[in-house]
């Protein structure tokens, strides 16, 4: 079995990659990918610990969280598609109407 600390390190690295993506990326789809990476890093964290202490509630939580992340991604894509019809692009630079 893989030692726990390796799994947690990988999850922390995934979190860093996802956060970096959200802060720097300029396109809509890449933003969604970064969010997915962020959510999955936390899921990996929980699943690794649930296996480690042999507790089923952690695994149940991850199932729920994957379902919710899927719903969230679906809504995100719907918003981006609607936005694409309006602006012919989903680059974040085109979204600067709402400013003071």
């Amino acid at each position, binding site marked *: 079995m893989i030692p726990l600390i390796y799994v947690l390190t990988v999850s922390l690295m995934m*979190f860093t990659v*996802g956060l970096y993506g*959200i802060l720097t990326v300029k396109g*809509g789809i890449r*933003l969604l990918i970064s*969010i997915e990476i*962020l*959510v999955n*890093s*936390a*899921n990996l*964290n*929980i699943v690794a*610990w*649930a296996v480690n*202490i042999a*507790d089923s*509630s*952690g695994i*149940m*939580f991850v199932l*729920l*969280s994957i379902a*919710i992340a899927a*719903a*969230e991604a679906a*809504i*995100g894509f*719907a*918003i*981006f598609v*609607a*936005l694409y019809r*309006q*602006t012919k692009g989903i680059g974040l630079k085109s*979204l600067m*109407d*709402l*400013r*003071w």
Partner: protein
Amino acid sequence: MMEIIIQYLLPSFVLFAFGIVILFWSFITSNNRIFSLFSIASGIISFILLLLNYGANYKYFDIFTFDTAGTILSLLFVFLMVIISIATYRFNFSHSEIFYSILLFSTGSMVLAVFSNNLISIFVTFEASSIATYILAAYPKSRKSLEASMKFFVIGALSSAMIIFGISFYYISTNSFSLGLTSNSSTYILSLIFLLVGFGFKLSLFPFHSWAIDTYNGARSPVSALLSTSSKLMAFAIMIRIFLFTFDISFSNYVQIFFIIISILTMTYGNVTALVQKDVKRMLAYSSVANAGYLSLIFTLTGENALSLALAAILVFSIAYILMKGGSFITMENLEEKGTTLNDIAGLGKKRPLLAFSFTVLLFSLAGIPPTLGFMGKYFLFLSLIEGGLWWLAIIAVLNSAISVYYYFRVVMYLYWKESNVEVEKNRHIDYAVFSLAILTLAVGIVIPIIFNSLYNLWGGLP
């Protein structure tokens, strides 16, 4: 066991069921008014069912705590939903069934969320209502509302990732998802930080507020009314259960100092930036950031007396906040087509006397002028600060409240003492909705000092 839990879950299940009925009814007709009536009817049924549960204190394992404070908050959410449905009775957009069914779904999840007492149920109900509100913010699919929804979605998804990460650290340090457990490990502190950032985004506390301004400004006004009141108070109730009833036991000093800094920054930033706004809707968005600062004052308190006073005061503040902020945003809906700048609302007192009068009452309440409910909420909240020994924080809060009087009164001045030739369309339903909120603000404001003693000790789930 099963029969009892059904009784408490029914108010939100009624909303879900009517949401599905509305979706299927759209095959028969696409008349907006019928959907609006469905939504009002489901709201009334749910309101009555919640009233029947009033005063109960029932724990379903550690998943839900059906306490009276949660019942009061969910009564407010359902009430606001009914008011929004009345105000949007004459909407004439395509696919309005989506608007109403998602409105019902989001309110139903919020009702469940304020009762949740376990990180699993908190996460699921919180996310259900968040996902519903992303769709609501996009609603008529104009460019402005889509941009607002997109910003809301990105920040919301980031905050939910932060919340799962915080939950994962909580799970690692305590081996459980139940609230109220303590641990001395460093992962416990990490979970505190991540959960704070995650819920801070939703409550629009200072460094995480910038999405809120754009979203409240860009979304359609009834949706902004929902986002800035119900959605925010839901996150706030969850934060009370997490931070006050869980983390406060082991780290009361750190939590206290952290929230003192954050609440001062949030109040001051919101109020000072609202001073220079020319757009009334944007001004209301900034003032709702300032109000989030007042709300987060409760986390700075320690000591049993001060805390029990503050937990009662926060209920009064929540009632006031939902009535006055919801009403102000719904007023903006009437002006949405022409623009919501100060010049557009000038002379509204002559053109629409009833609406202007109600809006004035709500603005007085937001500013905290004595006979109204807004004054009572602020009074009891600041009193609990003095009771807890933080009198200097109370002075800062009162000064902030004094700053806010300026920008609310400027709007009142434009309503009555300026002239403009902008035509305003007549919409009776918005008049009635806002007028009923204004009357309630005055009436409840007079009743609250009498019944305030009965608001103590309503929060269940205390360790």
